[in-house]
């Protein structure tokens, strides 16, 4: 029987990747919580697990490097090594090194920085003598002393198991059985002298001892190894009697050394991607399959002894079947959906490192990171987003002094906002830095012959030049994967996903990059509501609360704009029936419902008839066959097959402000 360990490598890779990500998050916390024991234990376990797994599944380099780290972390969690800024730096460097080693192990790269210096540093911190444990330990404990012999030696063994051997689940007979496998027994003497009278006997204790004379070609160590578990508590003596010449020498058989299997050349790396699926997604699938089975039996029932007068029921059953199987198909596709926060995971660390390197104070805010995208899109976004964030840190944001002089807060802010818009995901990367320098870009474009001296392109055209190949100053040569990236590559990557990227900038105020990615599908948690006879869906994430106001809470500003007071806060009321031109809706808020929605800090109270229920809505594009509709961000298909439109909260807020702006200007 031989289990091929390479089948577990994929599992190990995924686990190791997650562990390294967890480690990073924990290290980020460590800087603020130096004394947290539980945190230190968790960090230790990350390294410990990676070490164990990498050694077991055939990655000795990773195991070797991680070994020193594990020793250090063990001492840190025991309080023997203090948590200092220097320690944290070394830990972060080690994390990067482990990532590089893992990437190498996964066949993704062959560039691994030399870690001699880092390893020495780790040793120094853990106050170990240089040259401490570094070699991967051989798993076969006796391989060093493996002394395969073609001659059988004669041995005399005295084995008196300790009285408690069986209390810990041991069985001396099994051990003797193992001995029998490697020994030619000449004589066995059982020693019963230790057995007490029956009334005094503890049935769980061991009182018997053995003296065994035997021949074996195995070494002392191999023989003694059998009794490893009980040697400390037992009386165990092994003597070698004069060696005997074997008349028929057998070819020495090497003891299997059991070296960890080296990964077979990186060619046959299993192609399977592993998906982590939340259990509730799987549960919903299971439910759907149940529905499908029910509709199937409906069909069976109707078609048995079918008569034409049963046709309506047949059609009903077929329709139900179609709905259930379509939803099943969509949800299975949905399993590939992953939250954007996984693409953002590395950014807090990146921003921290970069801002320290360039001496700027930067805050990173992410909004809408629960927006889901197909896994491949998430993976494809990693590098482009990273580059945009780096750019913002490096070029976009000013240093604290410059910001102060400009009357801005010392802390620069980078915001990554994501949301659905129709059949697309929109990701915006905004900074409140100094904006793009139009004139500089124009002169550079002229330098490169992209624009003639006399031409004066529009501002948008000028800014678009930054996407031109070779245009950007690539100050950063290496990102996490060691490749240089320019804005042109960013755009190509986005276009490769059928998306588009645009930018807008405001000198002195900041720059905003807008990435649009079309989706084949997206699922959103929503709340369905009714206005008149029409059903609409609100994204759950935009909802703050709902309430039925009393007349005293309502008033009209300048006689025209309805507002409601909620715990002292005054919010505009947007009557959806007015906005969407719906007849037959309840117009009096006190008889209806106000749903308070929020986007980027702005709130408004939507007037609706009633809330229906919460559902998971598969977002369908309205634009694919129709066009963009103001205030609507897409559609979904309800359980009964009808279409419900999804409300675009940011769009509504913008439209409302615009109108109010117009109104106040006109007033």
């Amino acid at each position, binding site marked *: 029987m031989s*289990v091929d360990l390479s089948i577990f490598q994929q599992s190990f890779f995924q686990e190791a990747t997650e562990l390294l990500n967890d480690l990073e998050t924990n290290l980020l916390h460590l800087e603020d919580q130096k004394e947290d024991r539980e945190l230190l234990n968790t960090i230790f376990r990350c390294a410990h697990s990676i070490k164990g797994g990498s050694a077991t599944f055939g990655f000795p380099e990773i195991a070797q490097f991680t070994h020193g780290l594990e020793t250090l972390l063990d001492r840190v969690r025991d309080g023997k090594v203090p948590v200092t800024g220097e320690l944290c730096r070394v830990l972060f460097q080690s994390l990067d090194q482990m990532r590089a080693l893992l990437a190498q192990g996964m066949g993704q790269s062959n560039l691994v920085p030399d870690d001699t210096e880092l390893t020495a540093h780790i040793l120094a911190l853990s106050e170990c003598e240089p040259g401490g444990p570094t070699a991967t330990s051989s798993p076969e404990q006796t391989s060093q002393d493996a002394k395969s012999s073609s001659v059988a030696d004669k041995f005399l063994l005295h084995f008196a198991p300790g009285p408690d051997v069986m209390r810990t689940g041991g069985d001396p007979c099994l051990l003797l059985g193992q001995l029998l496998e490697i020994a030619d027994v000449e004589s066995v003497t059982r020693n019963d002298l230790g057995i007490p009278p029956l009334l005094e006997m503890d049935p769980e204790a061991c009182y018997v001892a053995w003296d065994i004379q035997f021949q074996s070609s195995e070494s002392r160590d191999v023989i003694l190894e059998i009794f490893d578990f009980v040697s400390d508590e037992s009386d165990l003596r092994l003597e070698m009697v004069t060696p005997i010449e074997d008349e028929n020498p057998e070819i020495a058989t090497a003891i299997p050394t059991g070296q960890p299997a080296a990964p077979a050349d990186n060619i046959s790396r299993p192609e399977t991607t592993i998906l982590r699926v939340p259990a509730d997604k799987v549960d919903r699938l299971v439910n759907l399959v149940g529905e499908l089975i029910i509709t199937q039996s409906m069909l069976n029932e109707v078609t048995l002894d079918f008569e034409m007068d049963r046709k309506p029921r047949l059609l009903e059953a077929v329709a139900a079947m179609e709905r259930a199987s379509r939803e099943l198909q969509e949800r299975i596709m949905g399993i590939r959906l992953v939250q954007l926060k996984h693409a953002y995971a590395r950014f807090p660390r990146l921003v921290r490192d970069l801002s320290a390197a360039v001496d700027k104070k930067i805050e990173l805010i992410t909004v809408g990171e629960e927006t889901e995208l197909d896994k491949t899109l998430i993976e494809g976004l990693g590098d482009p987003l990273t580059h945009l964030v780096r750019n913002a840190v490096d070029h976009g944001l000013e240093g604290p002094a410059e910001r102060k002089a400009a009357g801005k807060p010392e802390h620069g802010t980078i915001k990554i906002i994501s949301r659905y818009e129709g059949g697309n995901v929109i990701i915006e990367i905004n900074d409140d830095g100094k904006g793009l320098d139009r004139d500089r870009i124009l002169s550079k474009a002229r330098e490169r012959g992209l624009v003639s001296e006399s031409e004066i392109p529009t501002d948008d055209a000028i800014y678009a030049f930054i996407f031109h190949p070779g245009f950007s100053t690539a100050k950063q040569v290496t990102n996490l994967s060691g490749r240089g990236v320019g804005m042109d590559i960013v755009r190509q990557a986005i276009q490769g996903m059928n998306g588009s990227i645009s930018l807008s900038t405001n000198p002195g105020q900041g720059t905003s990059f807008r990435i649009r990615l079309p989706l084949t599908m997206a699922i959103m948690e929503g709340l369905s509501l009714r206005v008149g006879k029409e059903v609409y869906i609100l994204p759950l994430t935009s909802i703050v609360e709902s309430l039925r106001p009393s007349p005293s809470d309502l008033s009209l500003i300048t006689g025209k704009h309805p507002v409601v007071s909620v715990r002292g806060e005054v919010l505009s009321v947007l009557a959806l029936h007015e906005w969407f031109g719906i007849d037959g809706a309840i117009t009096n808020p006190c008889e209806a419902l106000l749903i308070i929605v929020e986007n980027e800090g702005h709130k408004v109270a939507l007037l609706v008839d009633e809330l229906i229920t919460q559902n998971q809505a598969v977002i369908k594009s309205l634009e694919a066959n129709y066009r963009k509709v103001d205030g609507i961000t897409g559609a979904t298909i309800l359980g009964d097959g009808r279409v419900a439109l999804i409300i675009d909260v940011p769009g509504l807020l913008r439209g409302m402000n615009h109108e109010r702006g117009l109104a106040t200007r006109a007033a």
Partner: protein
Amino acid sequence: MSRVALVVDDSTSMRQMVSYTLKDAGFSVIEAGNGQEALDKLAAATGGKVDLIITDLNMPVMDGLTFIKNARTKPSAKFTPILMLTTESGENRKAEGKAVGATGWIVKPFQPDQLIRVIQKVLPA
């Protein structure tokens, strides 16, 4: 009726490897991600009894040594062979383990056939 093994380790890949090896050797396997989960699964097992326990030591929620100590207090697990997964630098672990009632250990990293050989020291073939 095949023998039942309980495998306790917070590392998924490690658990998979051990489980696979055990199943290959004819065991049916129950898995747990930490000591507490292991105790729960032990209680839920048929007759509260399993034939073999293999446990890692470093785990969140409840570590291996605590788990072993607790397991030994359950009458059905009093004499169940318990093997710890240790590392070569954990010499003191072996003694600590025995003190709380572990039967033996296997040192990481190990090959599947080594695991089987160690199991044969505590369970008949």
